[in-house]
C-alpha cells in the first residue's frame, strides 16, 4: 500500500472576504494521497469540504499553501483532475453519449479509441440503452451514473467527488456505492470522495479524513482495514462496526452536539 504520492495538499488555507467580514473556511490542511488510494472525507456541514475539493480541482485559488499533483504544483483546472458534483451538473441539451464524450470533445480527440472509451463507460454504468436520451428523461441515480461515466471517460488521474450520492434515496445510493467500488477495483484510480454519511465513508474509503469546523481543519485520519470486495453486507461485519463506533464519536464530538 506504500505507493508513491499522487496528490499532496500542502498547508492549504482559504479565507473568504465578504461584506460581513472574513470567513476562514479551511485552515492549514495537510494531506498526502498515494496513487490509486481511495480517500473519503467526512465532517459537519460547513467545515470546508467543498472548499477543499474546489481548491484541489483548481476551481478556486487557495489563500495559502499549494496542491501538488504528480510532483507539480497545480494551477487552475486540469484534465488530470476530474470532478463529480452532487447536483450531477449534466448538460441538459446533450444526450447521455454527448455528455460522456464532452471531455474528449474539449480535447478535440475524435479518434476511434475515444469513441470506444465513451461507449465503454456508458456500458460500465449500465446505460447503453439510454445513450441517446436527454438527462431530463433519466432518474437521479441514472443522472449521477452519467456524471461518473463522464468523469471517467476524460481519463483523469485523480477523481474528486463532492457528496455525489447525497441527493439519492438510500437504495439507489447503496447500488451506486457498490458500482463505484467495483469500477475502482477494476480500473484503479486515485479517489477523493466527500460525504456526510459515516457508513459511506467507511464502506468506500481506505482512509477516512475526519474534519473539524470553524475553521475547517483535519481532526483525524482513520485507516480502514476492511477486505475487498466490499459490498453492503460488509456494513454488518464486526470490523466495520468497530470503525463506525470510533468515526461516529469523532464526527459527533467535532459537530459540537
Amino acid at each position, binding site marked *: 500500500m506504500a505507493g508513491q504520492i499522487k496528490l499532496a495538499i500542502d498547508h492549504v488555507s482559504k479565507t473568504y472576504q465578504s461584506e460581513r467580514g472574513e470567513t476562514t473556511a479551511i485552515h492549514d490542511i495537510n494531506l498526502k494521497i498515494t496513487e490509486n488510494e481511495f480517500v473519503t472525507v467526512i465532517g459537519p456541514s460547513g467545515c470546508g469540504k467543498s472548499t477543499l475539493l474546489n481548491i484541489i*480541482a*483548481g*476551481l478556486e485559488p487557495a489563500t495559502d499553501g499549494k496542491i501538488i499533483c504528480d510532483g507539480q504544483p497545480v494551477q487552475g*483546472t*486540469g*484534465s488530470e*483532475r*476530474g*470532478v463529480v*458534483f452532487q*447536483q450531477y*451538473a*449534466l*448538460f*441538459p*441539451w*446533450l444526450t447521455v453519449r454527448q455528455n460522456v464524450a*464532452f*471531455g474528449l*470533445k*474539449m*480535447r478535440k480527440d475524435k479518434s476511434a479509441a475515444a469513441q470506444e472509451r465513451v461507449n465503454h463507460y456508458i456500458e460500465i454504468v449500465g446505460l447503453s440503452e439510454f445513450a441517446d436520451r*436527454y*438527462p*431530463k428523461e433519466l432518474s437521479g441515480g441514472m443522472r449521477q451514473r452519467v456524471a461518473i461515466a*463522464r468523469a471517467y471517460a*476524460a481519463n483523469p488521474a485523480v477523481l474528486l467527488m463532492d457528496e455525489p450520492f447525497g441527493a439519492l434515496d438510500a437504495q439507489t445510493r447503496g447500488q451506486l456505492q457498490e458500482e463505484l467500488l467495483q469500477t475502482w477495483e477494476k480500473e484503479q484510480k486515485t479517489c477523493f470522495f466527500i460525504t456526510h454519511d459515516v457508513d459511506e465513508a467507511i464502506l468506500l474509503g481506505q482512509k477516512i479524513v475526519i474534519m473539524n469546523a470553524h475553521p475547517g481543519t483535519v481532526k483525524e485520519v482513520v485507516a480502514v482495514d476492511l477486505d475487498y470486495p466490499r459490498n453492503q453486507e460488509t456494513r454488518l461485519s464486526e470490523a466495520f462496526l468497530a470503525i463506525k463506533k470510533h468515526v461516529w464519536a469523532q464526527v459527533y464530538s467535532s459537530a459540537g452536539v
Partner: protein
Amino acid sequence: MQSELELPTKVHKAKQTRKLKPHPRVRKLAWLTLSITVAIGVWWLLSVLPGTKESFPNPVAVASAVGTMLGRGVLFSDIGSSLFSVIWGFVFGFIFALPIAILMAWYKPLENIIGPWIQFIRSIPPLAYVPLVVVSAGIGAKAQIIVICIATFLVMTVTIYQGVVNIDPTLIKAARVLGARDRDIFVHVIVPAATPYIITAVRLGATTALTTLIAAESTGAEAGLGMRIQSLSQTFDMAPMMLYIIIIGIIGITLDKLIRMFERKVTKWQDK
C-alpha cells in the same frame, strides 16, 4: 417474451382511447373554429349595438374592404412596407442584443454601466423619441427601421441577459474541469444554456416590433399598415381601418406560431 405479451395490450389501449376521443389535432382545430366563430359573433353584436356600432363596421363590410384597398392599389404595398421595416428592425435589434446581453452578463462593469441606460430608455414610449430619430435619419424606411431596432433591442437584451445570468454556475465548473477554455464555455455552455431565453427574447422582440409599428410609421411613411390606419382614421373610414387592424393581428399570430415551431425543434431537451 415479455415484450410479446405486453405489445397487444398497448395496441388495444391505444385503439380504445382513439375511439372515445378524437385525435388531439382534430380537437384543437374544433376549439379554434369555435373560438373564431364566437369572436365573429361578438363582433357582429358590437356592430349592431347602439353604443359600439360607430366603431365596429360589420364583418361583411370589412371583408369587402379588401376589394376597396386592392382597388386603390395600396393593400400589398402597405403590408410589404410594414413587413420590411418590422423584419429589418427586428434583425438589427437581435444582432446588437445577442452579443451585448452576453457581454453584460459576462463582464460586471459593462452591466453596471449599460444596464441603467437600458432600463431608462425602456421606460420611454417609442413614440416620444421618434422625432429625435427623424431629425437625423430623415423620414422613410431608415427611420422606421431604427425605431423598431431600438425597441426590439431593448426588450431582447434584457431577456437574453436574464437567461445568461441564470445559467447554473456548476455547469460552467463542470465544463472547466473537463478541459473547456473560455471560448469552449461560450460556444458549448453559454449559448446552448441560454437558447430557451434567446428564443423567448425573439418572440418578445417580434411582438414588440409589431406594437412599435404605429410609432415607427408616424415618421411620415409613404406606405405601411400603421401609417394607413392613421390616415384612414382622419376620414373615419372604419371598414378598411378594421381590416388593417386585423391584418396586423394575423401577422403577429403567424410570426409567433413560426417561432414556437422553431422553439420546439431546438429545445426538445428542456423540462417542460
